[in-house]
């Protein structure tokens, strides 16, 4: 999963880190990065879905 985080597009990685590590709200994440709050949520959703796929693939692999 760590490798998958590092492989995320830069903006997705920034949003993910600010949300789950720094604990910022989506409004604060958007203000920090200078983007719209909806845009920050979309980046976060793409990142979460990508990481969930990685987790799912890892759990079904032997």
């Amino acid at each position: 999963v760590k490798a998958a985080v590092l492989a995320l597009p830069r903006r997705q990685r920034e949003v993910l880190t600010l949300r789950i590590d720094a604990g910022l709200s989506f409004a604060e994440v958007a203000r920090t990065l200078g983007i719209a709050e909806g845009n920050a949520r979309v980046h976060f959703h793409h990142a979460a879905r990508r990481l969930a796929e990685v987790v799912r693939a890892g759990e079904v692999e032997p």
Partner: protein
Amino acid sequence: MSPACEAFEPLLVDRAAGAIDPVDRARLERHLDGCPACRAEAHDVERALSLAALPPLPDEERDAVARAGREALLRHRSGRRRLAGGLVLAIAASAAFALAVPWYLFSRHAAPPPQEASDGVAWELPDLEAVWAATDLSDADGPTGPSDVLFAELQEVDLDPQ
């Protein structure tokens, strides 16, 4: 995933991120109760985010971060106190200057020194000897003054009774 489940997918991520609206949460929970596929999806998203999060800071690092924050705050406050003290001094100095200048100008121009006459000519002590010499004291007591009366009385005194 059915179209109904796709509509709930963003809410699964919001719930895992702890950023879901209470109304949406209630709606999602009702859906999850009857949808094993979405429950599995929710589990994967939550697990992925928990694995992606950085490990918590050790106690020493957390203390160091908190200490650095407090010290930065103290430096900021002391800087503001110094700035406020300087501001008070500057205002006091300005007020003193504003009062001193009119007072100085008024005392210099409004009240002339006592030695100086109103026409601006300096007063000097007169030559008292010359004034005394020019004064006629012969009739200071007048023609009927006390000295004349006394002299007349003395002339009438007979000093030789014989």
